[in-house]
Structures are given as structure tokens and as C-alpha cells.
């Protein structure tokens, strides 16, 4: 039986990363260092999901030093995953999600796993990050994936990106609106506004504490280090072609 679990939210399944990497390199030609998976898991922990075979005797969590004799409950077999992110510097200025990679072992197809992984990720993009839409790339020849995105999930082809893949194949750039799934924050924000008004009256200008805004969020290069900071890593991997099976 296949379970769909979050990668690094609660509970954390981050110890599945090597198996996710194995699943990717077994199935797809577009591969990444483990660090790139870590980067996804630690920047947008809400957005990635994993499909695992439920172990015969159920799941066990790490049991302390020395491990346990039988690790099959702790390291279940990974049969699919979706690795997703938020676009960091959206060219259109719209917050949106992006599917970095999605694959399901061919021995586990026709169970609707890819669809479920996608829906979980899309929902998290809308709820946690107020993503306006989600985008992805798919090989023009990949009919099965195209059917999933267009017919089942409701994606639309945005444009064709010529020679997107390393082997020269074109990609459809697809996207789907997510704003309908946003959470309603109006009540909370109304309360905040009212509170702010009340505070203004008896304002006692204190020093602003901390950096609330998102402006400091931009990646800072690690100044000194072993060659590469995470910032470099991201750019380099963006240069590599990414895909969706």
C-alpha cells in the first residue's frame, strides 16, 4: 500500500532524501545533488511530498543510537515524489509555485499517485505561500504526463520552450491558477488593522524590533567557504535543465 506523506513538515521525513534521490535518478535523466533536495526541503518544507510503500509492520521512528535491527519501518521504499518550490524572483512579479521534479516508479503507475502528490503540493503552495499559480515544464512527447496536467489537474499550456531539455527536446511551459485555494485571512487582517489603529493612539514609538519584512529574504552569498554557498548552488542548478516526467 502506498502512503502519501510530507517530506519535511510534521512529522519530518527528511531521512527519505537519499531514497528520493535514488527514485529520481532511476526514473529521470534530470538529476540533482542531494544538496539541491535539501535546499527545497529547508526553504519550502511545506511543498514537497513523497509516496512510500507502507512497511509490512508499519512505520517506526528513529530509536536512538545504534539503530534497530530492522530498518524497514524507518526507511520505507520510495516509489514517487514531488519536489516543489516557490519561484524566488518571479519575472512577472507574481508569487507562484514551481514543480522542480515529479516522478513515480513505472511499477507503481495507474494508482493516481502523481495526481495526489501534485494536489497536495498545489494546496500547500496556495495555503502557505499565497501562490497565484503553479508552473511546470513537461516534454512535448510525454503524453501521459500531459494528460495528467491538462486533463486531470487543469493546467494550461503557457508556451512552448524550444530545446528546453538537454537532449534538445522542446518543453511545454504549463501553469494553473491557485488563487481559488487561498485561505481567507480577511478576518485576521481586519483585527490587525483595528489593533494597529488602537495602538497608534497611545503610540510610544519604540525601536522597531527585528526585520519583519521580506526584503532581507534575498539570498546572501556565503562570503568565505568551501567554494559554494547555497546561493551559488541554486543558480547553478537553475542553469541545468529541470523537468517533470
Amino acid at each position, binding site marked *: *500500500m*502506498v*502512503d*502519501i506523506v*510530507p517530506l*519535511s*513538515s*510534521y512529522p*519530518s521525513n*527528511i531521512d527519505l532524501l*537519499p531514497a528520493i534521490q*535514488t527514485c529520481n*535518478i*532511476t*526514473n529521470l535523466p534530470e538529476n540533482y545533488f*542531494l*544538496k539541491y533536495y*535539501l535546499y527545497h*526541503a*529547508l*526553504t*519550502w*518544507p*511545506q511543498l514537497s511530498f513523497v509516496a512510500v510503500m*507502507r512497511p509490512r509492520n*508499519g*512505520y517506526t521512528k528513529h530509536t536512538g543510537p*545504534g*539503530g*534497530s*535491527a530492522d*530498518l524497514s519501518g524507518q526507511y520505507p521504499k520510495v516509489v514517487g515524489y514531488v519536489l516543489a518550490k516557490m519561484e524566488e524572483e518571479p519575472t512577472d512579479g507574481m508569487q507562484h509555485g514551481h514543480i522542480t521534479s515529479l516522478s513515480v*516508479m*513505472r*511499477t*507503481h*503507475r*495507474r*494508482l*493516481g499517485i502523481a495526481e495526489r502528490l501534485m494536489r*497536495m503540493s498545489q494546496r500547500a503552495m496556495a*495555503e502557505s*505561500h*499565497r501562490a497565484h499559480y503553479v508552473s511546470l515544464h513537461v516534454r512535448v512527447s510525454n503524453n501521459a504526463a500531459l494528460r495528467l496536467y491538462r486533463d486531470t489537474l487543469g493546467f494550461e499550456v503557457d508556451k512552448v520552450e524550444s530545446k528546453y531539455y538537454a537532449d534538445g527536446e522542446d518543453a511545454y511551459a504549463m501553469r494553473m491558477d491557485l488563487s481559488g485555494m487561498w*485561505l481567507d*485571512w480577511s478576518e*485576521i487582517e481586519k483585527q490587525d488593522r483595528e489593533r494597529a489603529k488602537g*495602538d497608534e493612539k497611545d503610540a510610544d514609538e519604540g*525601536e522597531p*524590533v*527585528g*526585520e*519583519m519584512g521580506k526584503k532581507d529574504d534575498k*539570498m546572501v552569498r*556565503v*562570503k*568565505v567557504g*568551501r567554494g559554494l554557498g*547555497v546561493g551559488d548552488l541554486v543558480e*547553478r542548478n537553475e542553469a541545468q535543465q529541470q523537468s517533470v516526467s
Partner: protein
Amino acid sequence: MPQPLGSKEASLFRQVVRHYENKQYKKGIKAADQILRKNPNHGDTQAMKALITSNLGQQEEAFALAKEALRNDMKSHICWHVYGLLYRAEKNYEEAIKAYRFALRIEPESPPIQRDLALLQMQMRDYQGYIQSRSSMLQARPGFRQNWTALAIAHHLAGDLEEAEKVLTTYEETLKTPPPVWDMEHSEAVMYKNMIIAESGNLEKALEHIEAIAPRMTDVLAVMEMKADYLLRLGRKAEAEAAYTALLERNSEHSVYYDALIKAKGIPENDHKALKAVYDYWADKYPRGDAARRIPLDFLEGEDFKQAADAYLQRMLRKGVPSLFVNIKSLYTNPSKRDVVQSLVEGYVSGRAAQQPNGSAEDQTNGDNKEFLSSSYYFLAQHYNYHLSRDLSKAMENVNKAIELDPKAVEYQMTKARIWKHYGNLEKAAEEMEKARLLDEKDRHINSKAAKYQLRKNDNDKALDNMSKFTRNETVGGALGDLHEMQCVWYLTEDAEAYLRQRKLGLALKRFHGVYNIFDAWQEDQFDFHSFSLRKGMIRAYVDMVRWEDRLREHPLYTRMALGAIKAYLLLHDQPDLVHGPEAVDVNGAAETPDGAEKKKAIKKAKKEQQRLEKVEAEKREARKTTSAKGIDGEIKKEDPDPLGNKLVQTQDPLKEATKFLTPLLAHSSKNIEAQCLAFEVYLRRDKYALALKCLAAAHSIDASNPTLHVQLLRFRKALDSRSEPLPPQVAEVVNAEFDTLLPKNQNLTEWNESFLAANKGSVPHKQAALTCRQLLKPDTKPKCEKDLSSTLDSDLISIENGLAGLNLLNEWGSDQAAKKAYADKASKKWSESSVFQLG
């Protein structure tokens, strides 16, 4: 004190620093040289030049210069800081920390030094040091939230949960108004606090807290999961039921939610009717789901099971779901369920599937029926190929029928290959898997499987050739270079194991070390996140990552690699001539001539082969030179100077090298009996009796009747008895006392061995172990033991793996060619489709 510079030089020095920061290394060196022409002993400049030199990859020169800089200016924080950075680049973190500390003593207010020190303390898990560093960083800049969070992390990981929570709360209290709801840094920091509260064990408080914060939290799913978990653990059943219902409405494909829901509802395990009703509800609600239909098969019995299984199987077979069998096979530990499944599907292929359980016979077109039939044959093929229901000739019959109906189905063809594998015919298996690959050449999954099967028959070259259809072959090192760079652990491990089987130890070690290095890289990967995650604010994910990194090498991928590497080093230690290649050691144990002429000849032949391989490798490298030599990051990558692993295999001390792989294995997988048994082999050969005994004791507590352990107990006794000089009295006392509890000294060993055999009747591995001991105890019984070993082949219980282990045992015993041939012939007859019993 930094030596003063003239104003022109001072400005040049600022340029050096800027060039370094902008990675304009050549310009940096030029400017530094300009200063040094006038002030040849200026420590700070030398230090900066050293730092740039190190970034250009010239570590030796860099270190020499940095040392000179320090000699010229012991009191410069720049010199010490650079010295630390150089050590860090070499991953000598202890020395780096020392150097940073010196720098910080000179310049206590320097934020960059403080930060670099803190990062290393985190990497080294020096939590007390980290608490200190983060405290002073917080004092210096209390306005930054991340400084508060970082201190909380330090306390949390050091185990002081109370203090961690206090730090977070102190910061929260400075917030006059709640940050906007979209402020994820805030949201995550608050969630992190909840995680700490829950870990402290105060679930009531954690629940109260999460309910209070929930409306503003952005990670909606995590809030739901945490709350549901707390409720259930607190026994607040009605609320827990509601919480898990809500989770299932989000994701109905998660068996853990169902388990929790049923616990919350308080349904007893044996109330199958009530259980089934729960699952039926969800199956109706989400008709396309699988979990709610599949799980009841686990608990239903008798006729109920049969009906449910019938409905489930037919539904999935009609949909042609290829994973149906892997989804079902866990039921087979219950033999009656196994038999029901078998008779149901056998029924389908003989045309007894018409009546759907709900009564409405489906109107099938011919096409649908054909898919149903081929899926059913495919299911049966896997069924009869599975070890709990194995009948390989039936498996083959069914897979052929499936293929006949759908010759283009890759999965069917793959299963045919797997059947051949179980027949013990790796050549046929690889051949059939290759056919499967050709059915869909654009699919990497089947390509990977084809390569794996080629490795299983020790065809490393062909396997790599297959893999290269999906790798970036312009990488330095070609396809193999890409597989290393992309950290393709499964392939490198399989490749290594194939070389080990061929006793090509250089290449085997090369690959094992390749995987070892990947684990090092994975450990190193966390470094950048110590600062990155504080900026991003996703603290729970970060803390989870740190904890995972601490047990990284517990991963089964590490265990498998390390076991292989240790075996390779043991083999190298036992047969040092293998350093020249497999040809140097005659595997068939042909009679050695007194003057060793045969051996000399063999070594000469092996050396010649090694030279040939080196030449081939050099040619390949030459051919690649014409193509680009740049990695994907634009870095110039060097060709590996030892692609064949010749340097690795020439080690003077294989056992010491083995220890490198062994230490993490014992630290993280001490409950793995194979690890303990291999560790024993290493320690025994190193004359480390106390350590060897510790492994025996550990293995004994895992499985007292393990066959390998049984033989090792005897070998340890014999090793103790046959020592030429006695152990040091203190060691001897401990060893003798401890070992006496495992195998008492006054025990009659023959009786001990025979009672082991009697207690484990029917198990072939135990019988093999007892026979090994018998001929160790009385070497003159060897011919009889060989005969007895051969007669294990008559057992109904013997698997082909057991049979193969028996053949290897004859090698271990040093049996002659005739004995081996007799055994192999008999085994070949028993497993007539196999090829593994052909002697080379």
C-alpha cells in the same frame, strides 16, 4: 598589532579584500604582490594572499604563506582568521576552531570571526561553544530575530528545552503587535516553539499553544497533524477523531491516519465489522482511493476476506494496475490468505470472473477482457515468482501467456527477467531484461534495471554502456564521472559488488570509496544551511535536518556499501597477491609447486593484465580530453589520477582502511548482526581480542543461534588456545571471563557443536555452520563433511542461495577440485535452469 601601511598601500589592501570577496582572485593576487614589494613582511597582506591562493586550489602554498604571515604578525586577527579558514577548507574543523578562537581573542568584537566560529561549532556539534557564540552575537545585535532564534536552537539541541523556549518567548514579548499573517518567519518561529514544548513532554501545554496560534499559522497541514497527534496522545478521543477525519479529508491515502482514527474511535482490533464499516465509509467517499479498499484485507478473515479480496483484485486487474501484486504480497505471511488469492486469480484466467460481487456482471468489450486476462496472468507470474508462493515453472508459464497477449508490455518482460534471476540464471535474466529495455528505450527506469541485471552477471562494461544512454557523458570522467557527480549510490554500489565478486579489488575499492565520499559530501552539505536556514526562518525543517545528519550513516545505503568495502579489505588482507588482480590467485586451488613457479607465473600474468587495463584507461582519457573538461559549475575538474583504484589496493594496511568503514557502521548499526560478525573478522585479524569478543557478545545478544556466530565462537576459542604468546594478563582475564559466558572453557566442543546442529534441525545454513565447525575440530573428517554438505542438496528446504553458499564453503574449507565438482554437478542437476553452479 597590524603593521601600519602607507596610504597608497592601505588603499591597495582594501582592494585585495574587495577582489577576494568578488572572487576576482587574479586581480587580488596582483594587488597583494604590489603591497608586498614595498612591505615584504606585511602579515595581513600575506594572509589575504594565502586565502586567495587557497581558493585557487593551491592548498600547500596557501598554508606555507599563512604560516609565514603569522610569524610576521602573531597579533593580527586577520592572520589567525585566515589560518582558520584554510583549516576549514581542509575540513580540519578542530584546528580551524582553535585558530578562530585566537582571532577572536585579539578582536572580540569582530562579527565575521564570531560568525565563522559559530558555524563551525554548529557543524562540530559543540553546543556549549555554540551557546556561548550565539549569546555574544545576540548581545551585539539584539534587534535581529534570527539571533534570538539561533540561541534558542543552541539551547534546544544542547538539551535545554526550557531555556530554548524562554529565549523564544522573550523575543515574542518584545513584539508590540503581532506580525502580519503572511510573515512566515514569525509563523515558523512560533511553530518551532510549539515543537519544543511538545518535546518537553508537556502535551497539554503544546495543545493549548497550538490551538491559540493556529489561525495565523501558514503551514496548515503541519498544524493539523500536530494537533491531531497531541489530542490522540492525550486520549482526548472525540476531538482526535475529528482531527483525523479532517486530515483524511485532505489526504485519504495515508494509512497512519486510518490507524489513528480507529484508535480515536476506540474500535477493538477484533471487531472486524466495525472496522470494515469505517473503511467502507471512506471508500465510498473517495471512490478513486486505494487505501480504504486495501487495508481491510489485512484484518478480514474467512469468507469476508475472500469476498473483499475478490472485489479488490478484479477492480485492480481491470484497471491494469501494475503494482497490484506488490500491494498484495504482504498478505502472504498468512498462508490461507495466500491460497485464497491464488485460487481467485487462477479462477479469473480460467474464465470464472464473470460474476462481480455486487451482482452486476460488467458488460465487457473484448479489449477490456484481454487486458483483464493479461493482467491476471501477469499477477500469477509474480505470485509464483514470490518466495512465499514460489513455483518458477508456473511463473514462467504465466508470464509467457501475459507476454503473448501483450508483447509490448515492459512490466511483463521485466518479470520474465526476474523469474530467470530466481532460477539462478543471471545470463538469461540480463538478456530478458535487455529485451524489456528495448521495448521502451526512452524510459530510464527500465534502462536502470537492465544495467543492474548486467552488473549482477558481472558485466560492468555493458552496464555502464547502458547507463551512458541517460548520463551527461561530456562530464569529466565520462558517464561514470556523471554517476559520481550525481551521487548515483545504487549504481556505484552494485558496480563495486560486481568487481568484488570478480575479485578485482582495486576497482571494487574505488567504487566503495566513491560512495563513502558521497556520504562525506552529504554530511558536509549541511554546512551552508547553518546560516541559510536562519535567514529563511524554516527552523523546524532545519532542526530535523541537523538531527538526521547526526545519524546519516545509519542509512541502509551506507551499511551495504560499508559491508562490501570491509569484505574487500579482508579479502585483500587474506590474499595479498590480489593486489595484482584476480589472475594472481588461483581460485581453484590447483596444487602449488614447491618452488612457487606456478604462483610466479600467475602474478606475472596478472600484472600484464593490469598494464593492459591501465593502457585502455589512458586511451579513454585521451579521447575525452578533446571534449570539454569543465564541470557543470564551470569549475575545472581534474581527471582522477587513479581511475582503476590501483593506489587504493596497494595499501600497506588493509585492516586499518577497513576500520574507517567499520567505525560508523558499529556506531550507527550496532544491532546489525552482519556488521558485528564482519567487525569480529577485522578485530581478530588485528589481534584485538577484547574488541573481537565485544562483537561476538553483541551478535549473541541479537541472535544467539546465528550460524556465522556459531563458527566464529569456535574460531575465537581456537585462536585463544593457539596463541604463541599469552595475552597480557589484564586482557586475558577480561577476555576469558567474558568469553566463558558465550562458550565455557570446559565445554566439550564436539558436543557443543552437535547440540547446535540438533537444535536447528531443518535449517540448511545452520547445518552448513555445524559442518564447518566439525571439520575445524577434526580436520580428518573433512571428506565426510564434504559428503554431508553435498547431501544438504537433497533437502526440500534448501534454497538456491543456500546451495550457492555451500559451494563457497568448499572454497573456504580448501576442498579439492573433485569435491567441488561433485557438489556443483549435483546442484546443477537440482536447479537445472541455473547457471550459477558452473565452475570457472
